């Protein structure tokens, strides 16, 4: 088990490094002088030269990469030109809003998808199953921002009753205020989670041990919750890890709809003002969170399904993962 986790941790570190590299190289690809673009056309030659030397644009590439990595490890994400503040400070102000919104939406996804999947999996191909899947498939096709607009029209309000910044997050009122944005994100992603759990439950129902449990005389609910549900959790939790990236993407858009002071708003401002250090910082932060959560998913799966702990099971499991990979909506396979 330790070996498997170490291997996974190694892969996680490589992925993290690659992301930082991708984001960093984008910065190098800017046509013309980045300092000129950041300062705008009105800046004087001296200002541009000063910023260029501050950013170290004329240094050789390996030196720059080294400098950037050392800065990242020390928690220094650079200095935002547009806001004239350090990037870390700006992110620190905005991140709680985005993360709590994403968490809220995530919880809503779980709360909606588990009972619906249990209902749908009761009988494959039944009217209930087909209608649940039809409705969730339709909500999957509605982009989060249009969902938010529909919700606004239904509830006849655009006001969330927000005070500024972090003050929103400290009381229980947060749950009420953020309900609409979180629901808008969650509704458009429920179908993905639901499909996974439903397929896994149906898959498990066909297996021998379910029959054995029926023969033993266990009650239906006991079979469902103690035998089938636990076994179906592994693909479900894996899928949730992958959905997280989508949830973050959704919350970035939704913040723009409801004017929440989160990372999404900050990012849009940064992109419009072409504030590269801030853009880099936010993208690296979100990608890092997604990757770490996906690593934790592997870790959690080991506790849900002890069979995964012994490495020799992996080869027999591979066929199962392969089948699963196709069900995973277009997001590919899971090792």
């Amino acid at each position, binding site marked *: 088990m330790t070996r498997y986790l170490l291997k996974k941790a190694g*892969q996680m570190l*490589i*992925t993290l490094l*690659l*992301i930082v590299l*991708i984001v960093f190289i*984008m*910065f190098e*690809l*800017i*046509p013309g002088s980045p300092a000129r673009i950041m300062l705008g056309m009105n800046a004087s030659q001296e200002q541009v030269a000063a910023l260029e030397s501050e950013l170290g644009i004329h240094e050789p590439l390996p030196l720059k990469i080294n400098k950037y990595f050392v800065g990242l490890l020390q928690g220094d994400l650079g200095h935002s030109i547009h806001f004239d503040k350090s990037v870390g400070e700006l992110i620190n102000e905005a991140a709680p809003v985005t993360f709590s919104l994403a968490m809220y939406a995530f919880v809503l996804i779980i709360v909606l998808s588990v009972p619906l999947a249990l209902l749908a999996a009761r009988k494959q*191909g039944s009217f209930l199953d*087909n209608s649940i899947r039809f409705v969730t*498939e*339709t909500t999957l*096709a*509605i*982009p*989060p*921002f*249009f969902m938010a*607009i*529909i919700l*606004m*029209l239904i509830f*006849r309000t*655009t006001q969330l009753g927000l005070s500024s910044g972090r003050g929103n997050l400290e009381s229980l009122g947060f749950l009420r205020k953020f309900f609409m944005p979180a629901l808008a994100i969650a509704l458009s992603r429920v179908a993905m989670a639901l499909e996974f759990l439903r397929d896994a439950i149906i898959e498990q129902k*066909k*297996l*021998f041990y379910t029959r054995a449990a029926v023969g033993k005389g266990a009650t239906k609910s006991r079979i469902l919750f103690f035998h089938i549900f636990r076994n179906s959790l592994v693909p479900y939790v894996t899928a949730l890890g*992958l959905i997280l*990236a*989508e949830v*973050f*993407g959704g919350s*970035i*858009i939704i913040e*723009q*709809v409801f004017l929440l002071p989160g990372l999404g708003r900050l*990012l*849009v401002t*940064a*992109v419009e003002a*072409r504030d590269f250090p801030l*853009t880099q910082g936010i*993208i690296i932060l*979100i*990608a890092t969170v*997604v990757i770490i959560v*996906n690593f934790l998913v592997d870790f959690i799966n080991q506790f849900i399904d002890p069979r995964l702990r012994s490495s020799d099971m992996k080869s*027999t499991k*591979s*066929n199962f993962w*392969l089948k699963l*990979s*196709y069900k995973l909506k*277009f*997001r*590919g*396979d899971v090792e």
Partner: protein
Amino acid sequence: MMKFKRKFKHKDKNNQISFIPDAQRAYYRTSSINKVAKLQFRIGFMLLLIPLILFLINLLYRPYDTTSMNMSERFTAPNFSHWFGTDNYGRDIFTRVMSGLPLTIFISIGINLIGCLSGLLIGALSGYYGGVVDYWGNRIGDALLSIPAILMGMLFVATFGEGIWQVIVALGIMFIPSYMRVIRSGFLEYSQRNFVKRLQLIGASSGRIIWRHLFPQIRTRLMSAIALGFANAILAESSLSFLGLGVPMSQITWGRMLKDAQGFLFQAPWSAIAPGLMIVILVLGSFFISNGLKQFSQQRNMT
């Protein structure tokens, strides 16, 4: 007794004993899946007919100009002369929605072309050969998949400025790993089969095996992935336009129409609903077609 065992137990390719509860029931299940798949395919096709008709009308005839303003007709509710009403400048929304269609389709086709072709190349190589290509392909794929697609689009816009090609390239790159994984898993599944081993024995070249023998096996699921990718591309592009990034101001896109409509949402809800509904119709149609194709391919694998 032996006969009974042979009928109900068989070994799959991993040498595991799997259990078929009842041959008859399995048959019925397949046929019901078939029905649902056909139904989904039909619904998807009918939904996609609506944008197709609009596209043809747009080519032949536009009832109003898309940019000229008419302040006397601001916020007209839908009626016979303005089917979807008018917006804050008195522009006809039906015409604007219609004229936004070609650009949307062009962008999503471009995105999927980049994603599919590169994904096919990398996926086929890593699925068939494995090894180093496979490992690094997966790592880069993991890295790209953990960035939400919109963020990559924004990164590209921040770097290269706004423009249609920036959106196509950025989102196209983000779509490579998804295609790569679908194709790779297909190639992995089939490249261990006996027919591939036989082909290798009689000296068929790798290119021939990949293109002539393995590719046709995964064609249906690739088509399903393309339909899904088409839908996802429309969603991603409209999200970027909704944020006001990506496609430049001069072009009409549904995302930007929705963004503008948000300012006068309660005065003129139709101005938000029309472009949003178009996105939903196009995306839902592609989803259904993709689902239908996917079930066909799964059913083929079952038999």
